[in-house]
């Protein structure tokens, strides 16, 4: 994992000192709320419905056991014993006191974490593939690229007051696990015609009230040109992005209004204009970054573990968990394991301090002290020996974290919704709980197969409803919560925005509606066909009819 250098440490420490002073001045009354609000937001501190909320960045989703243990301590000391993983590889604490926040930030700095740029109109936490560095399908580990962008974008003076927030994701694999087409800039690692590794740059993707699939700005960018090209995009956006209307200020609107061809010309012109002036990243700094992501000391193991195979044959529940939650590793004899935070009836993405400590222990024992956070609000233990998988599974079961449901109907993405969020128009967590209870039966989940339900409590779409195979959007009409279903969304390399499935439903009607959609799919699917494949084959009308036939 990347370790802070003196510059990182100094920057974070100074920012904490500055914020401690700002909090003090606010509490003494020498700063008004109007003056203080942008300062606290720049440090990830929101004011939500019931309390402050602190959003902490987990850069490109990499987390050490030590960091997770520190988050557990913070949860117990300053909060209410739990945290919430978001869809952008952050963690949020829902109940901190304002006066405690500088101390929390000090504690985070001890383990090289911070909350800088987790809010505000700046470049937010850079996200990436939770299987970075271990995925068998990877062209290149995306973490050094993501770290380079993190360093470049941290407190970048030119890009700290953009027209609107700006989100960047990087993937190193052709199979996209980062929703790269739904970011302001999505970076796909690709091979050029001569076999050299470079990037495909996608811009203008996003969700919110105007969902857009990103468009290709450059199909192949040499690696050395990455930062100058990103600068060119940001500069063009900074210049032409709309500041007169918050709802039209994201780069996706600029791409839509200007057109990708014309915008591409402007970006390329800016790139060419500034090419001579842009400095390449420092060679020593790049080497430092690359070294930080060298492989852990794997052992030479056979590709198949007899112990593992025996355990799978012996215990069907273990076999089911492996089939669902295990991913092939690029190193023989190892596997990556997803620990879903999606208990039946639970709050998606929430994790208690006890679970944090338990998982930190398991990461130390089984995964070189490393974890990953996924945008699907789960955790990954990225380097587990196959012959230790059974022991790990038993330990996870003791923590009640061995649900074999990754990618299944109960693995629901869900924003905090109106239970916590000041922007929400409806509750989302109780809907997720009701659906997961309805489909609690593991056999039924497996029979249904891959199915991504994503729930947002408002049009801002933090719960990614637009790109759910079944998306659920919570709204408010005449004081009552109601829910709009969409079908056919896809966050991956075959991106799609879901289409509306019909009129809004009451909260009570949602689980029945989801069940009708699923039952329709089960009735009409071809052998081996997933929900999304069936939807694409038959079209939305078939599902809409099924949904409303009995309605």
């Amino acid at each position, binding site marked *: 994992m990347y370790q802070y250098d003196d510059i990182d440490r100094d920057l974070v420490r100074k920012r904490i000192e500055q914020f401690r002073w700002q909090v003090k001045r606010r509490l003494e009354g020498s700063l008004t709320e109007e003056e203080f609000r942008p300062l606290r937001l720049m440090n990830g501190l929101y004011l939500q419905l019931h*309390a402050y909320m602190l959003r902490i960045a987990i850069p490109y989703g990499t987390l050490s056991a030590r960091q997770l243990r520190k988050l557990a301590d913070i949860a117990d000391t300053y909060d209410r014993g739990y945290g919430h993983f978001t869809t952008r590889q952050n963690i949020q604490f829902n109940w901190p006191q304002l006066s405690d926040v500088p101390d929390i930030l000090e504690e985070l700095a001890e383990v090289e974490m911070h909350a800088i740029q987790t809010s505000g109109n700046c470049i937010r936490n850079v996200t990436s593939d939770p299987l970075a560095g271990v995925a068998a399908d990877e062209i290149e580990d995306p973490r050094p690229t993501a770290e380079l962008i993190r360093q470049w974008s941290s407190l970048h003076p030119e890009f700290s007051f953009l027209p609107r927030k700006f989100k960047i994701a990087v993937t190193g694999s052709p199979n996209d696990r980062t929703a790269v087409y739904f970011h302001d800039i999505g970076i796909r690692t690709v091979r050029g015609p001569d076999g050299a590794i470079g990037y495909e740059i996608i811009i203008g993707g996003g969700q919110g009230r105007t969902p857009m699939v990103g468009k290709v700005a450059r199909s192949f960018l040499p690696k050395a040109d990455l930062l100058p090209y990103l600068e060119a995009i940001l500069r063009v956006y900074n210049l032409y992005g709309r500041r007169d209307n918050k709802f039209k200020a994201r780069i996706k609107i600029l791409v839509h209004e200007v057109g990708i061809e014309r915008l591409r010309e402007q970006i390329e012109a800016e790139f060419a204009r500034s090419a001579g002036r842009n400095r390449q990243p420092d060679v020593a700094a790049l080497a430092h970054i690359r070294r930080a992501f060298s492989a852990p000391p794997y052992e030479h193991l056979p590709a198949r573990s007899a112990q593992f195979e025996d355990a799978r044959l012996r215990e069907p529940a273990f076999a089911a968990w492996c089939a669902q939650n295990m991913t092939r590793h690029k190193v023989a004899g190892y596997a990556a394991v997803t620990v879903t935070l999606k208990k039946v009836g639970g709050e998606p993405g929430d994790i208690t301090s006890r679970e944090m400590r338990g998982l930190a222990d398991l990461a130390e024992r089984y995964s070189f002290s490393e974890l990953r956070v996924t945008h699907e609000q789960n955790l990954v233990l990225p380097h587990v020996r196959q012959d230790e998988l059974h022991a790990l599974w038993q330990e996870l079961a003791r923590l009640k974290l061995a649900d074999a449901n990754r990618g299944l109907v109960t693995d629901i993405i869900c924003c905090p919704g109106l239970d916590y969020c000041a922007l929400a128009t409806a509750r989302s*967590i109780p809907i997720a709980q009701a659906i997961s209870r309805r489909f609690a039966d593991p056999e039924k989940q497996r029979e249904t197969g891959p199915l991504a339900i994503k729930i947002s409590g408002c049009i801002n779409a933090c719960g990614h409803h637009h790109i759910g195979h079944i998306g659920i959007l919570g709204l408010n009409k005449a004081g009552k919560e109601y829910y709009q279903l969409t079908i056919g969304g896809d966050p991956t390399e075959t991106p799609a925005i879901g289409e509306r499935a019909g009129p809004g439903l009451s909260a009570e009607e949602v689980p029945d509606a989801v069940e009708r959609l699923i039952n329709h799919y089960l009735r009409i699917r071809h052998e081996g066909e997933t929900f999304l494949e069936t939807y694409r084959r038959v079209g939305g009308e078939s599902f809409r009819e099924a949904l409303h036939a009995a309605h």
Partner: protein
Amino acid sequence: MPKPFVPKIVSANDLLSGRTVFLSGNSWVSDHHAASVAASPEEAARLLRLGEPQEDAVVGPYLVDVHIREDGTPEPIELREIMRVTGPTVKNGTLTFTQDATV
């Protein structure tokens, strides 16, 4: 015909804790039942003027529509405001939140 006036209380978030608070007389309390109620537009404006300068204690005072219960205490009408007084309706681990089995 003008809409009939809906009674109002003043709510905000406590500066230190961020918790939901309500203006009661000249101080801020956590129990919305104890909030001062404005029965007219003039009274609502007066209450808000009372709350607004208290920036050293609270963040963002604003008026909240309420109905008056039989015992004379106010209860918010809008869903968002109901949520602000009940707290999250979901439960996590050992936490005890008000349960609302709407779903």
